[in-house]
Structures are given as C-alpha cells and as structure tokens.
C-alpha cells in the first residue's frame, strides 16, 4: 500500500515513439460515430499513451508501492502542451510521486509527469494526475 515513504519515487520511460497509427486509432475512438477533425494529427490527450501511461504502468507494477488496481480510481488529470508533438517523434517520459495522503479509507496518490523530445529538448507535455486507491494506507 502506498505511504509517505514513496513520495519522490521516480519512474522513467525513455524512447516512446508517437506512432501515427496509434494516434489515428485514438482519434477515431474519441470521435466515435463522428468524423475525426484532424485525421493526420495527434489528439492532445494521446498524452495518455506517451506521457502518462508508460510511467504509470511502472508505478502500478512497483511491488514496493503495492497499489491495489482493483480499487483504483482516476480522480483528476491535467495536461499542458508547450509544444505540439508530431507523428513519428520519439519522446522520453518520466513521472514522480509528489504526494500521498490517506483519508476516509482511501489513499490519494499525486503524480507529476513530463515528456521531452530529445531531438530538440522541447517539453511536449507535462501534467499532473491524482489516483485514488480505495483502502487506507
């Protein structure tokens, strides 16, 4: 179960490729029955795949933190896109646990994340997330 000793723990996922096909599939999934507005672009929330997802998988499988996935809720999310990512880009993603708090039988895990394009050192995305784990620490 996550506790205060895990604050500051970092996860790194270098070399994430912005796969054009994956971006297109996400754009289609978001659009559902409607036409995709920018079929050749990268949807902003594709950041879930290249910025949030890879370090999050590492957190979820970190045996020392021991998050119970069955009780997990995504509580809040923020993204900033200082520079737009392009299909085919390679980015290095990382995340850090910035806060852990237990109350009302739940554990609130805060994360900060960033994706940097090493080709020009541009920050293409940064963000924060709040994950809520049912079951107190």
């Amino acid at each position, binding site marked *: 179960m996550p506790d205060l000793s895990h604050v500051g723990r970092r996860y790194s996922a270098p070399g994430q490729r912005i796969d054009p096909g994956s971006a297109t599939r996400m754009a289609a*999934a*978001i659009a559902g029955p*409607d036409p995709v507005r*920018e079929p050749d*672009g990268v949807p902003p929330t594709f950041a*879930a*795949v290249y910025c949030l997802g890879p370090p999050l998988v590492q957190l979820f499988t970190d045996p020392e933190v021991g998050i119970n996935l069955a009780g997990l809720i995504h509580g809040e999310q923020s993204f900033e*896109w200082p520079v*737009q990512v392009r299909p085919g880009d390679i980015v290095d993603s990382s995340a850090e646990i910035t806060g852990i708090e237990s109350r009302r039988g739940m554990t609130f895990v805060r994360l900060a994340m960033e994706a940097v394009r090493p080709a020009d050192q541009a920050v293409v995305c940064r963000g*924060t997330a709040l994950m809520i784990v049912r079951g107190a620490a």
Partner: protein
Amino acid sequence: MSAPAVSAVAVGDSIAPLSRRVTQDQINAYAEASGDHNPIHVDAEFARSVGLPGAIAHGLLELGILAECIASWAGGNANLASLSCRFSKPLLAGDTILCTGTVIAVDDAEGIATLEVGATSDRGDRVLTNGRATVRLSR
C-alpha cells in the same frame, strides 16, 4: 481554420457545445487505443461487482471529447495549450456526454484565453468538473 483573434474573444463568450453518445463499442475502441483494459470499462458484470452501476467510460476518453470540443473552437489541436479537470462522476456506456466551455479571462499580451470547461451526462450528472483550459489565440 486558424485560432480566434485576441481582439475577437471576450470574457463571457461561450464555445459551441459538443454532444456525443458514448457506446460500449466506443469504450472498447478507446481501451484498445489507449492500452487501458481495466475491466471496469469493458466488462459490465465486473463493474457491477465492484459497486459501479455498469461499465464506465475511461475518464481520459471523456477528457478527449472535451479536448475536441475546445480544439474545434480554438482552430485546431495545436492551439490547445492546457486542459485539466476532475473526474467527478462516472459516464456509463450508452450515456450522452455534453461538453461546454466559457471564456473567463483573456490575456491580450500573451495571446491566451482561459476557459472554464466541463461536461455533464444526460443522466444529469456533472461528470467532468473544475475544468480549466488555455487556448493560444492569434494576433
């Protein structure tokens, strides 16, 4: 389509709302596209076993629809500079989401509009709350 001009945007302006029925097929497609196969999204029976009323949409799918709504007003994805929200209530498969936004500040010097954004479901639930977005405007 280009970004709205700074001179054409004012506090109180509303963006065109976006309404979309989110089906289980769409949620399944999002699970494939995002790699998030949590059974609360794709298995209604499992979702009910953990106290949910049924399979629920990924919060990030809802956020993606909200981003599309804002980007439509902003003249494209490249003009959406930031977006944040709280996932307050679940959106069930088959529900219709309604995304809205209103300009609450315009920074003439930086060419940035700040919007209060959010989404409700046709059940009357406020599914995305505390939403904020910033948009890059043109000169």
